[in-house]
């Protein structure tokens, strides 16, 4: 990117400078990034390789390093979308409205463990978890309660459910919207529908085997976008965030995400669709972790990698389908139960990474994240944190402000190169469902867990309050608790629905679902019918279990 003769001159001057500082002592520390990329003490034009127009170029232009849109935040700020849900749909609805009144610009439903796993609250093994880690969405009535008085035609809603329950929960949402008089062709929103979240991010409780999960994830992409039933929906959100939280590094995060995306694309191409029929609606969700510059380099590298994959591997024609659009969540695993107020500082810095890196949407964590579900006050502080970045810091004045930094350009190249290598490694194992069923991904996760523990215990990874400036847990924070009545409320909701619905008619529809599952046809049309007639999420998932079996993940310790 620089004149050759001038680079020679810089090289000579650099050698002189190095001679001058030779022998000066450095701190006893490892100068590496979080993913262990060795970092030099100084970067200069000598480290920036390649041609500007080829590698960096302008925003909204190939290879999209500087951003997917020509104007980025000068045109439109990112969406402020807080992941939120607790207790009952009614309680969550109140929290959503509170955040909306305070400037939130997108919703995101955190569901409870029963909704995640397709278990009804009548199951006594699971009942204590009704509403404890998210909102319970077990039947269509729950969706009406969740969105009451919320203009779902104007504001986008993210439904954070995974392949095992994507079809029933989203079908309930679409049916609810139809009954309210909306045309679902205009609905905006996202379904997470990410196979890796419920397999390696969390471990699944009585879900079906990965090959079926991959197929039903693709059924949803096919039905919403390729077949144009809900064409403005994002039918999948590859959520590197959730496994990054487990301890893998930035390079692995992108490796997992892109390998998974390729497996889904391949599945849809095998069904006879063309890449441009669906690929523009695929979305991504990445983490903003502790290593400030590495995360920014990661976002920039991700855009370039996606562009190359789409252009070179899949031959995308429409330029709109070449851009890597992503949501970011700050790192929950970086927060501590000790010194919880420091979490506000951590989150602010991580939010800044995401915005400097050009994200389309952002969730900032609440400072009580390591202790309990977010209290109202903590959620508001989290929202205000990104509003400070948006309204007070002026970082939005210009696009991709760190481009041209010798260090950031070098690190972007370095992350990109390592991700390509890691993707090759995954692809040698096979498609993403095989990487799961063979246990390969579980070993990667296990190694990451172990590495983090050792680093933390050796003090190589410092966490204030935990392994430096240790303090006991803080008991001052007001712990937010969900309603103890949630179980009764949700069981009553299901019983009321069951009393109202035409059980004979529903039985026939569920029988049809059995046959659709056996023949491995697209499950969406019949699940739209079943949920409209009042089938619960648990009832539908029980049919999956009956036909496809229950999968025990090959966990590694």
């Amino acid at each position: 990117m620089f004149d050759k003769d001038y680079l020679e001159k810089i090289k000579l001057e650099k050698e002189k400078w190095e001679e001058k500082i030779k022998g000066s002592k450095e701190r006893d520390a490892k100068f590496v990034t979080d993913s262990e990329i060795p970092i030099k003490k100084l970067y200069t034009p000598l480290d920036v390789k390649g041609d500007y127009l080829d590698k960096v170029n302008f925003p909204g232009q190939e290879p999209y390093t500087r951003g997917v849109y020509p104007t980025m935040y000068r045109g439109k700020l990112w969406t402020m979308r807080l992941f939120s849900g607790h207790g009952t749909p009614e309680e969550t609805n109140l929290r959503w409205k509170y955040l909306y009144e305070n400037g939130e610009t997108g919703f995101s439903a955190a569901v409870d463990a029963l909704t995640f796993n397709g278990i009804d609250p009548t199951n006594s093994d699971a009942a204590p978890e009704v509403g404890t880690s998210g909102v319970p969405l077990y039947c269509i009535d729950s969706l009406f309660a969740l969105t009451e008085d919320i203009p779902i035609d104007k504001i986008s809603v993210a439904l954070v459910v995974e392949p095992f329950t994507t079809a029933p929960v989203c079908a309930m949402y679409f049916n609810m919207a139809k009954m309210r008089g909306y045309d679902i062709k205009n609905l905006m929103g996202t379904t997470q529908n990410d196979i890796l979240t419920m397999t390696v991010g969390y471990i699944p409780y009585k879900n079906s085997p990965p090959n079926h999960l991959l197929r039903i994830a693709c059924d949803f992409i096919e039905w919403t976008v390729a077949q144009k039933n809900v064409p403005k929906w994002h039918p999948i959100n590859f959520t590197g965030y959730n496994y990054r939280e487990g301890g893998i590094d930035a390079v692995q995060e992108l490796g997992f995400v892109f390998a998974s995306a390729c497996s889904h694309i391949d599945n849809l191409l095998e069904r006879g669709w063309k890449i441009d029929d669906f690929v523009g609606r695929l979305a991504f969700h990445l983490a903003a972790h502790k290593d400030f510059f590495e995360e920014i380099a990661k976002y920039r590298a991700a855009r370039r990698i996606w562009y190359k994959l789409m252009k070179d591997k899949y031959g995308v024609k429409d330029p709109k389908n070449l851009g890597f659009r992503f949501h970011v969540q700050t790192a929950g695993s970086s927060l501590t139960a000790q010194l919880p107020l420091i979490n506000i500082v951590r989150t602010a810095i991580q939010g800044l990474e995401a915005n400097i890196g050009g994200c389309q949407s952002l969730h900032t964590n609440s400072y009580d994240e390591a202790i309990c579900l977010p209290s109202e006050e903590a959620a508001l502080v989290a929202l205000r944190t990104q509003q400070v970045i948006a309204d007070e810091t002026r970082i939005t004045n210009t696009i991709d402000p760190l481009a041209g930094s010798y260090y950031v350009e070098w690190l972007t190249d370095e992350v990109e190169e390592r991700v390509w290598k890691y993707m090759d490694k995954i692809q040698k194992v096979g498609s993403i469902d095989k990487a799961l069923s063979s246990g390969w991904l579980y070993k990667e996760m296990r190694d990451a867990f172990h590495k983090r523990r050792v680093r933390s215990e050796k003090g190589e990874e410092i966490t204030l309050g935990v392994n430096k400036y240790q303090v006991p847990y803080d008991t001052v924070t007001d712990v937010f608790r969900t309603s103890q009545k949630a179980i009764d409320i949700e069981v009553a909701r299901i019983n009321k629905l069951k009393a109202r619905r035409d059980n004979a008619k529903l039985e026939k529809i569920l029988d049809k679902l059995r046959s659709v599952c056996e023949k491995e046809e697209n499950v969406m049309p019949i699940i739209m019918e079943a949920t409209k007639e009042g089938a619960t999420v648990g009832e539908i998932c029980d049919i999956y279990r009956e036909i496809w079996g229950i999968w025990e993940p090959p966990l590694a310790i």
Partner: protein
Amino acid sequence: MSEKKIRVLMSKPGIDGHWRGGIVVSRAIRDAGMELIFGGFQNAKQIVESAIQEDVDVLGLSIHSGAHFAYTKQVIDLLKEKGVFNDILILVGGVIPAQDFTKLKEMGVANIYGPGSMTNDIVEFIKTHLKK
């Protein structure tokens, strides 16, 4: 004659899938030379059955869902019913607010390990607090 290895059962009551904590502690326990039985998802009945069958000295419950009181009570009630409560050291780990530690201890939990706990502290505690 070699000393009998300490036997530890690690279980996840309920259905919440946050698994990192349980695996990290399991690995540390195994690395410390103890016998680790990984129960994974188990309900109270399965946990107590495994604990008796495997003749464990320590039971670790990994709970991240916020439902720690309900699940811990179910397990402890059943351990008492089967007459083995006094033989087994019970530890709970996960996202547990510090406010709840006292009540869990009153219920019969020997110690609680929240986020950021050091695994060597857990190993040390086990070695010095065995019930039998």
